[in-house]
């Protein structure tokens, strides 16, 4: 559990699969992050507003096929959360079209897009599941050490 004692930042993980939440939580905590979890978009939005986490890891398909996109939009529209980088992950096959405004991360995976547009202060990155725990830690590290 190297670095577990270091408080490197606060990460909010939103996913309706409790096991995936648990995997992410264990990995990020071991890397020294403070981790909060939510199993629905609604719960996640509320936590994002109250906690102001440093990074949000967001599952796309929860109660609806594209709930994650709705959550991301709501985060963007709220001045309190619009600057929080969001890492989107989905186990859903490519049949769900990723809205263009979330596509920045496709070109520069894992890299914040803050200067591009106020709305895209989200360091939006989009990943297909499975993202291994080590890879997730790496992505979060990179976003937060910039």
């Amino acid at each position, binding site marked *: 559990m190297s670095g577990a004692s270091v408080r490197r930042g606060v990460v909010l993980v939103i996913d309706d699969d409790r096991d995936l939440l648990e995997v992410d939580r264990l990995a990020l905590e071991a890397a020294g992050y403070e981790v909060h979890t939510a199993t629905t978009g609604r719960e996640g939005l509320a936590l994002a507003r109250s906690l102001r986490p440093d990074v949000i890891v967001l599952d796309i398909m*929860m109660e609806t096929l594209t709930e994650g996109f709705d959550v991301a939009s709501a985060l963007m529209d709220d001045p309190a959360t619009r600057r929080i980088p969001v890492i989107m992950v989905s186990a859903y096959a490519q*049949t769900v079209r990723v809205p263009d405004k979330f596509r920045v991360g496709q070109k520069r995976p894992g890299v914040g897009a803050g200067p591009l547009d106020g709305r895209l202060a989200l360091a939006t990155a989009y990943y297909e599941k499975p993202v291994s725990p080590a890879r997730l830690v790496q992505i979060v590290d990179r976003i937060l050490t910039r």
Partner: protein
Amino acid sequence: MPGKVLVIDDEASIRLACEKVLTAAGYEVEVAADGAEGLDRLAAGGFDVALVDLKMPGVDGMEVLRRAREMDPDLVAIVITGYPSYESVVEAIKAGAYDYIPKPFSPDELRTVVGRGYEKHELERQARMLSEERARNLATIAEERGRLLTVINSMADGVMVTDREGRLVLYNPAAARWLAPGALGRPLGEVCRWTELEGLVREVIATGGLRSLSTDLVCEKGAPTFMVTVAPVLGDAGPAAAAAGPGPGGAGPDPRAGGEVLGAVLVLRDVTELRLKERERANFMAMVCHEIRAPLSAIAGYLELMLQGVVGQEAWPELLERCRARAEGLVALVRDMLDLARMETPVRQVERFPVREVVEESLATLAPQAERAGVVVRVEAPDEEIVVSADRFELGRVVTNLLSNAIKFNRPRGSATLSWHREGDYLVVRVEDTGIGIDPRHLPRLGEEFYRVRDEATAGIPGSGLGLAIVRNIARTYHGDMCIRSEPGAGTTVEVRLACSPSA
């Protein structure tokens, strides 16, 4: 085949002479001694030429001529007359005679006159055959055109044909609904509700008929989807084109074989159902991928955490248990998908058996699950033993899936109650639970493949979202239905009705 001649004369010497001369000349000869006998023989048919004596007792020659003509208009009649007068010859020819021969006549004269008559008969016969054959061919062509039109007109697909300039030259009734009245001869772009068709036709003609185009037409939302195929109409390219068969586009002859582009043929097909099915299948596949990826991600994630020492060994048993649960979920998913696939090509084995047998099997399977969840399963069997005609596997799947849901979406120390009874031709299976219940807004969609209630209460509950879809499909197979009543927080009751001839 030799010519066949009938000699009708009351003078035996003439008959004999004629028979002798004509037989020697290669004819087949029959004789008749008077008019009545002659007509009898003619009625039997098969004669090319008849020699008729004008002056006979009884039925005279004129009468024979008239009646013979009625019987066989092609028969060549030659009159024999002892006193050839202008009047009698004219009268005979009016009555249908072809020629005459005066008595007495030499064998040469007889041969010449009969030969001429026979030749005329042959020529007429051949001419008639030729004209009949031509008439038959014309009838065939007319019939084929009619048949082709009938085929085109009865097609469900809309068919339109344009000339090189894109003017409409032919369309069938199915296409008429998209065309303005009086569309024939006018540019397609002016008369058709799909204005893009004109451009497609121009494109196909511009390529010199080298290719066909196929595309879905822009339709209003909710309206049927139509696909159009535009193929060139090619002129006569000779046998090479016919031998080349269909072109690479699949429609029309292969233009590589040559031929001039005369226009374009457009076939419009309703592909609404097809596109819907394609979308459903794509969605289904995407859901399957999601349902497989999620547990695999969880298992792979846990294993990596353990293998890389991110979590200490003291936490392993719990994580391994989660891996096992997710692996079990995958196994169940595959089983459910196979069940669904089985529905599509049913291999049903219907037999008569008591419902109780299937119930007992299901209970045995589910006992460990119920025990883990701390849910009590009650069975309220009817007083009478109910025997049904059904596939054991299918009825078992209904009972197992309903009970499994009642256990999964329950609470510790809750209960699931299974009962069944007869309602006429229907067996009714009911499962009632004291579980978390279902928000009414989800009820209409439960039973759809992969539809699950996804909220805080269900987040930890494994399942493929196929269980109820399978139950619903089975119910439909048995002309029945599935009915769900629920009160959130209090419990859910699912009733399935199956027409399977239940009897005590």
